[in-house]
Structure formats: structure tokens, C-alpha cells
């Protein structure tokens, strides 16, 4: 088979169907950009999960003087004593599920609070003795939160046991939801893209039935007859895939680094790096090449007699 002959046939075919080709390119680009976006969102979620889950799992807050005075029910017996704290610590260290424990006193808590909220009105009226002392507990298996919570909640001097993951989980649920929505939209766009490809192939098979009829009669192999159609779809798909890649790269650039610049606005969030984006691109390109080619192949079985 002569490459030049085949290439010129592809060029002719794509130009003949310019509007259809354009529609295929746009729909492939959008569906694959959504696909890549969904993959990146998943990466982002797991990145944040590991970042936050690593930091802390459970906080055991102790009663301070303030709690006792304002009548927080768990703190009826007054502020926590050194003995009570010691007892909690030794009990924690005895538990199998606990990996590490560190202590945060009121001054540290105050400092962290200041760092986080800075010069807001609320932060300015807070004093160090209003902050609670706490144990930050890291678990080997974060799912075992209940074991620790039941062991320490309600103890003398313990104000509350908080699973900090539960706050994060709401965020992750939101991200999961967005992920599913993106995938659903992607599925829809993909169906549209496939239908467009099938239709394009049908139209171009019809408009070239004279050529293909002659090819058939002089004994061209079915692969030879079908190849230009399949390559046409693959080329259009690949162009769409390239656009999808550009969308992903530009998307990360504007969302995270510049434009919206989320990285500056949300310093606490660990964002995915360029490597996460770049590793998705080959996959997107491969799909953009193979999916239209396969769709064209199956469309040809129906619309092109060989």
C-alpha cells in the first residue's frame, strides 16, 4: 500500500465533510477534556485526602477554665487536671489502633488559630486561655475512629472528641459529586461524538461509493478500502484529542496558577502538580485516536459493502 495515496485520500475526505469533521473534532475535544478533568479531580481529591488525613485524624479537646465557667455540660467538674491528661495519654498509647499522639497546648492552639484567621475581628478578641488544650491522635486505620471516640468521650476533663475527617469528608463528597457529574456529562458527549462519527462515516462512504465500488471490483482488500475512512475518523479524533489536551493544560494554568489563582487564595489546599496533568495527556490522546477509529470500523461494516 502506498502511504502517499492513502494520505491524499484522507485529506480529500476530511475536506469534503468539513462541517461534520468540525463537529467531530469539537465533540471529541469536549468529551475528552471532561474525561481528563474528571480524572484530575479524582487525583485532586486523593491528594487532599492524603494531605489532610496524614496531618490528623482525631482531636481530643480538654476542658479549659473558660468552658467550666460558661457551663459546658461535659466540663461540669472544672478544667482538666494534669492527672487526667496523663491518664488519657497513657490510655491512648496503649491502644493498638493509635499510631502517634502529640500534644497541643493552649498557646500553640492560639498560635495556629492566629495563623489561620489572622487579623479578623474574631481572632483579635480571642486570648490564649480561651483556647483548648488537645491531643492530636493519628490512627493506623482512620476508619477506627469510633473506638477512640467511645473510649474517651465523656471522661472527666474531656470536652469533646472530634473526628476531623468528617468535616473533610463533606468536602470530598462534594468533589465526588462533581466528579460523577463530569463523568456523566462526558458520557453524554461521548455518545454524541460517536454518533457524529458514525454519521460522518456514513456520509463519506456514500459520497465515495463510486470509488469504493471500483476498488472492490479491481480487487482491493477490504482493509485497503476501509483504511481511508478509519484514518479519517482517527485523524479528526486526534485533532479533537489535542484540543482536549490544550484545554486541560490551560485549565490547570488558569484555575490554579494564574487567572483564578486558587493556589494563592487557598494556601491550605495542596493542589495537583503539572505531572498529574501531563500523565493524563497520553491517555487522552490514545483514546481520541482509538475510539473514533473503532467507531468508524463498526460503522463501515454497516454502511460500506466490501
Amino acid at each position, binding site marked *: 500500500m502506498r502511504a502517499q495515496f492513502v494520505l491524499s485520500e484522507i485529506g480529500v475526505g476530511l475536506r469534503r465533510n468539513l462541517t461534520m469533521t468540525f463537529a467531530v473534532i469539537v465533540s471529541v475535544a469536549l468529551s475528552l477534556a471532561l474525561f481528563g478533568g474528571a480524572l484530575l479531580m479524582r487525583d485532586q481529591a486523593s491528594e487532599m485526602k492524603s494531605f489532610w488525613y496524614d496531618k490528623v485524624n482525631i482531636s481530643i479537646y480538654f476542658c479549659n477554665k473558660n468552658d467550666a465557667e460558661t457551663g459546658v455540660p461535659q466540663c461540669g467538674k472544672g478544667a482538666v487536671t494534669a492527672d487526667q491528661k496523663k491518664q488519657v495519654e497513657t490510655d491512648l498509647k496503649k491502644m493498638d489502633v493509635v499510631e502517634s499522639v502529640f500534644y497541643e497546648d493552649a498557646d500553640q492552639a492560639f498560635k495556629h488559630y492566629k495563623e489561620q484567621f489572622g487579623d479578623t475581628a474574631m481572632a483579635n478578641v480571642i486570648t490564649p486561655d480561651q483556647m483548648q488544650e488537645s491531643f492530636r491522635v493519628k490512627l493506623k486505620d482512620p476508619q477506627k475512629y469510633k473506638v477512640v471516640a467511645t473510649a474517651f468521650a465523656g471522661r472527666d476533663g474531656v470536652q469533646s472528641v472530634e473526628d476531623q475527617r468528617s468535616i473533610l469528608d463533606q468536602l470530598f463528597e462534594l468533589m465526588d459529586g462533581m466528579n460523577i457529574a463530569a463523568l456523566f456529562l462526558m458520557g453524554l458527549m461521548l455518545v454524541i461524538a460517536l454518533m457524529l462519527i458514525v454519521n460522518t462515516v456514513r456520509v463519506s462512504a456514500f459520497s465515495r461509493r463510486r*470509488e469504493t465500488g471500483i476498488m472492490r*471490483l479491481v*480487487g482491493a482488500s477490504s482493509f485497503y478500502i476501509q483504511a481511508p475512512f478509519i484514518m479519517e475518523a482517527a485523524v479528526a479524533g486526534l485533532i479533537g484529542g489535542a484540543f482536549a489536551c490544550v484545554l486541560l493544560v490551560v485549565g490547570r494554568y488558569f484555575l490554579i496558577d494564574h487567572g483564578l489563582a486558587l493556589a494563592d487564595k487557598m494556601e491550605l489546599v495542596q493542589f495537583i502538580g503539572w505531572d498529574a496533568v501531563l500523565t493524563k495527556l497520553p491517555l487522552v490522546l490514545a483514546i481520541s485516536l482509538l475510539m473514533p477509529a473503532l467507531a468508524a470500523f463498526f460503522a463501515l461494516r454497516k454502511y460500506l459493502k466490501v
Partner: protein
Amino acid sequence: MIRFDNVSKSYPKQNRPALRDVSLEVEKGEFVFLVGSSGSGKSTFLRLLLREERASQGQVHVLGKDLARLSNWKVPQMRRQLGCVFQDFRLLPNKTVAENVAFAQEVIGKPRGEIRKAVPQVLDLVGLGGKEDRMPGELSGGEQQRVAIARAFVNRPMLLIADEPTGNLDPQTSVGIMKLLDRINRTGTTVVMATHDQQIVDQMRKRVIELEKGRLVRDQSRGVYGYQH
């Protein structure tokens, strides 16, 4: 070259079969006219030869191969040994004469050097030397049919199938085409030609096979178009 053994062909949704129990044999190098009124089964006969259709019953052998047993992917290989000419020429309007002929070689992957040599040669043979760069639209009907014959013959097929090749041409031009087909036949190529042209059949005095309502009703060497009792 061609052998039909009790071949029948019926199409779905048609109660009368297009071919009924046809048996015949065509030897290498023969020239055969296929005659019969419209709907007599001529086209079906030719379609079976090209394996565009498969026989419902019986066996069709072409070039020593049982077409019923030929797997689909081997059909192109078989068709490379056949040439086809049609009433409506079937040329590619956006390609020149030479490109049209070369197309038949390009699609089966002949090397370019060979194509460059073979195309002018076959165009000379059909009497179109010097018109390589003309477009089909600029040629007369007879010349277009010559291009089609050149394309069918450029790969030197064993068997040339012609479906009313003179159907669109005036009598004088038709004679020229028939002379050309006769010349191709003399190179050893078997020719099977379906036709309605009484004059041509009567003049050529070749073997005549007549179909009527799907049945073989006459097989006569050196025959004429109509019945002779």
C-alpha cells in the same frame, strides 16, 4: 475457467428464482455472449461470477475455485484475476484517463514503476495513446468505454466480464469496442459479455448462451442473437 453446476439463485422476498438450475462450462480463452430479455437472469449470472452474490443452490467455480467455499477475505484476491466493464463506464470523474487506469493498480499495491510502464502500454492497446491527461468528461462515450476497458485489462485478468458494454454507444462506436474486446480475447483472456445488441452478436458469431426467466434455454457455439430453428 467457469463452471456452473445446477446453480439456482433466489432473492429474499421474491418468489420466482432469478436463476434456476443452470449448468454450463466456459473454457479458457472462449468468447461468450450472454443474451436474454430484461429480468432473464443475466445480471444475476454476472454477479455470481464476481461473487457479489452467492448461489442459493449448486456450485459456481471460477478460475478453478469454488466460490461458495471462498472465504470473504480471499474474495479481493480472486477479483484481481477478473476485469469488469459496465454499460455506464464507472470512471472516476475527478481523475485523468491515466489516473483512472492507474487506480486499478494502485489499490492492489502495484509498485509505482510498474504502473508507470503498464498504463501507457494498455492505453496504446485500447487506442487512447496521447489522451493520458484528459478528463473522462472531455471524452466521447466510446473513448470512455475504452478507458474502462483499459482499466479492466491493465492487471491482465484471466477473465473479462462485460455487462452490456455497448449499451450506451451508437452502432459504429460499438463495433470499435467489439473489435477491441475481440483483440483482448485473442491474447488468451476469456470474455463473458452480456448484451442486448443483436447486430453485434450476429456479426461476431461466437458462443451464445441464452437465459429466459432464469433458465438456460440455449447454449450454441457460433450462435446468433435470436432463436434459430
